[in-house]
């Protein structure tokens, strides 16, 4: 399509912008203070609804005028539920409070909002530079990040399109309507943007292939299936700033010549579905979607398709099948969806993060984007960092930052003085890397070379108390269940991998197991039809490569070095440390395995113990008498005294 009648689209949009600016000004100038609360799924799960209700109650009780502003997620999961309180009259800058429970909300309403005391012991920092309070930007968790995709997340109300527009939203679209599709694609190609759904394919090239096909009725699909266990960046984006994604989709459709688009989002994301739905309606009502977008001849409809939550339906060909109403099974590629996709029409499938990267690229130019990240992987990467780190959450960093910086500087390192053991990157398709890879730069190619994968951005950090055999078992359990069952290697091969790993974790390993794991993993990787099967053995292959000693200990010594595989560990009570007469552990044991010895200390009856570890938690830290060992034979045998004696002592 050729650019058409732009003066009018510019005029229409400036009117919208003016309205957005007016509303923003009105909000800013409204009297009273502002309380911003993160209300994405993560916030709600940690109690943000209760926090909000508590603020509302306390405000009305005390007759304080304040505006509660619900925003999305800023990615600082460790701080949820968080609020930012902007109370200009108090003389303080806006302040970030972590862990704001309902009780804390009431307390802050009284002490800060009413009496002007910000209770500095509860703050994380100020959100603006100032003379009085250290800014959160002094923390690496804030200042080492680089926000491109998540820039507006947590700052705007995702259910109010004007807030996005007031922050510069939809200007990239207006800018695109002035250019030809070819120019836009050239810009995207020059930016070097690579798909964030895992494979890292050039987005510009995909769009160009789609643009060039002669067929009509093309589709754009935003892949928001996000099935990896532990990954939630796409959900966060959908819930925190849906318009940036929608804007990316509109630009993609304009550039490739598509007139219909779909957001494929899993039904398990009800809040995301609702928010995207609202966003689409609002964009339509302002003429940014629908017929004749901003007065041009360009039409686009966006619909939502709710997937049923199968991991494999994130794979593009299975995704298409499932929209068509069939069983979500991948098919051989080529033909790729750009040639033959939904209803056999050319279909451009991009990940949420890929599409959300488009508006900033258009707005700031390809050269600006190339400045961020590395030569072959420009831009930023978003990781959900979880596991044994002090500050878990969503982190957006420039590509090329090392794993060490991400884990130790940005996420605060390993808590409880434990040592780093491994980092699992890329979810069930990714791999586990040991310490020697900590200086690996995070980009598509370096991670692949190390045997891991960018994947969709899941990252699990593990300390010394983790067992890599068990971690592999966990991921194989997932992929094995999620295999679509179509092809031989994945359907049956992953079942045998899991079976072998389960035997190892139970101490039933066989001599041939390690070789079989290796060989079978290689064959599944080389033989499977789709990416699920091809990558499913990665957790096994990398852990076999880098943590072979864990496997050997399980197979040959029936020992679990991470002390996690229940069948291979035992708990016992160190009689030198156990305090006579204390019975803190007795009550917590679900199977009454703990008995009193003849000199009134405690012992564990191994035949009853289910290895839940409750006694470890219950034992007072000053005694710290419960020990965990592997193999179980290392636990000293403590005789249970004959019944009558035990009874007498207890009474």
């Amino acid at each position, binding site marked *: 399509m050729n650019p058409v009648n732009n003066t009018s689209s510019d005029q229409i949009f400036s009117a919208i912008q003016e309205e957005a600016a007016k509303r923003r000004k009105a909000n800013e100038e409204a009297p009273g203070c502002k309380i911003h609360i993160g209300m994405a799924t993560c916030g709600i799960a940690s109690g943000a609804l209760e926090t909000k209700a508590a603020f509302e109650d306390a405000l009305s009780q005390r007759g304080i005028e304040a505006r509660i502003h619900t925003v999305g997620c800023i990615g600082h999961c460790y701080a949820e539920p968080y609020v930012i309180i902007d109370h200009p009259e108090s003389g303080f800058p806006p302040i970030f409070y972590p862990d704001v429970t309902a009780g804390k909300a009431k307390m802050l309403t009284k002490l800060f909002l009413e009496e002007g005391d910000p209770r500095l012991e509860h703050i994380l920092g100020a959100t603006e530079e100032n003379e009085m309070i250290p800014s959160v930007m002094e923390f690496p968790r804030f200042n080492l990040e680089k926000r491109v995709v998540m820039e507006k997340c947590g700052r705007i109300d995702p259910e109010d399109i004007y807030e996005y527009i007031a922050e510069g939203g939809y200007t990239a679209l207006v800018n695109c309507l002035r250019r030809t599709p070819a120019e836009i694609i050239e810009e995207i190609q020059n930016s070097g943007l690579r798909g964030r759904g895992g494979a890292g394919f050039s987005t510009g090239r995909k769009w160009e292939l789609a643009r060039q096909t002669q067929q009509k009725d093309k589709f754009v699909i935003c892949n928001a299936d996000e099935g990896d266990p532990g990954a939630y960046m796409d959900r966060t984006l959908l819930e925190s700033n849906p318009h940036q994604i929608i804007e990316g989709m509109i630009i993609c459709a304009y550039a490739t010549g598509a007139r219909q688009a779909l957001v494929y989002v899993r039904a398990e994301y009800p809040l995301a579905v609702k928010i995207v739905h609202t966003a689409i309606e609002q964009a339509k009502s302002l003429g940014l979607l629908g017929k004749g977008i901003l007065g041009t001849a360009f039409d686009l409809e966006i619909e939502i398709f709710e997937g049923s939550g199968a991991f494999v339906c994130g794979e593009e060909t299975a995704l298409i099948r499932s929209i068509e109403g069939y069983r979500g099974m991948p098919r051989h590629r080529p033909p790729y969806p750009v040639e033959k996709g939904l209803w056999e029409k050319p279909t451009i499938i991009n990940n949420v993060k890929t599409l959300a990267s488009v508006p900033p690229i258009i707005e700031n130019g390809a050269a600006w984007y190339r400045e961020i990240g590395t030569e072959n992987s420009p831009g930023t990467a978003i990781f959900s960092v979880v596991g044994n780190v002090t500050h878990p959450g969503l982190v957006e960093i420039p590509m090329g930052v090392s794993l060490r910086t991400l884990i130790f500087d940005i996420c605060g390192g390993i808590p409880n003085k434990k040592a780093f053991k491994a980092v699992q990157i890329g979810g069930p398709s990714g791999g586990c890397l040991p310490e020697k890879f900590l200086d690996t730069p995070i980009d598509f190619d370096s991670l692949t070379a190390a045997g891991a994968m960018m994947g969709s951005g899941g990252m699990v950090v593990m300390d010394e108390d983790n067992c890599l055999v068990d971690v592999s078992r966990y991921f194989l359990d997932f992929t094995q269940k999620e295999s679509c069952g179509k092809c031989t290697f994945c359907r049956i091969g992953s079942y*045998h991998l899991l079976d072998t790993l389960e035997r190892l974790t139970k101490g039933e390993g066989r001599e041939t197991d390690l070789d079989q794991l290796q060989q079978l993993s290689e064959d599944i990787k080389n033989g499977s039809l789709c990416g699920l099967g091809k990558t499913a053995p990665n957790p096994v292959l990398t852990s076999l490569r880098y943590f072979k000693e864990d496997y050997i200990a399980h197979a040959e010594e029936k020992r679990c070095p991470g002390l996690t595989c229940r069948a291979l560990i035992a708990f016992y009570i160190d009689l030198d440390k156990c305090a006579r007469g204390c019975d803190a552990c007795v009550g917590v044991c679900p199977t009454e395995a703990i008995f009193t010895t003849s000199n009134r200390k405690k012992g564990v009856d191994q035949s009853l113990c289910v290895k839940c570890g409750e006694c470890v938690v219950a034992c007072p830290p000053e005694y710290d008498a419960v020990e965990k060992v592997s193999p179980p034979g290392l636990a000293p045998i403590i005789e249970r005294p004959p019944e009558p004696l035990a009874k007498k002592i207890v009474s």
Partner: protein
Amino acid sequence: MLTLTVDGKEIQAKKGTTLLKACLDNDIYIPNLCYIDGIEETAASCRLCFVEIEGEEKPVTSCTVPVKASLKVKTDTPAVRRLQKTALRLLLSVHHVDCKNCPANKKCALQDMAKFLKVGLKPGHLQHCLKEPEIDTSHPCLDYYTNRCVLCGKCIQVCLTHNGQPEITFARRGFNTVVSFFGTAKNEKDSCDECIRCVDICPVGALVLKSSP
């Protein structure tokens, strides 16, 4: 007609055919289970028909490769055989090997491939594992033997091609995937009785008419 080289021998093939079919037509056997002649989009699910093509790093499934002039193909390399043997062993590890009581005995694709690839019918290192129930008898005129089926999908495909709306389909996921008569109305009896294309195409003895053993 195009000319390509397979295992050092020049063969002729019609444009538009797949490499697998071209080889089979020229008496070059490549193990296969899921390929159906004449159906445009192959399932490529059995993962047995691997070959090596000059210029490609890894073995590829020959049923998904359209023939091209000057292709140089090898059907018998160590990498190809390794994948084929593993695939067959995997299939056998979940197969109820009971040839003398199976209607497919002596015309069974698994027996043929085992002989060709020199793989024993017993699973070896792999844990043998069978699914429940052994037989699905819910269809008015067909019985389905869960532990004979190799899930090639041919029965579903022919049914779809012939009837538009297939009477049988895959059900469940992963290891538990089975062919199911889901949705088959009882009055399908007559039409199924007359058709039985699925029974005829099954490369093993997994779908049988109720009257036969």
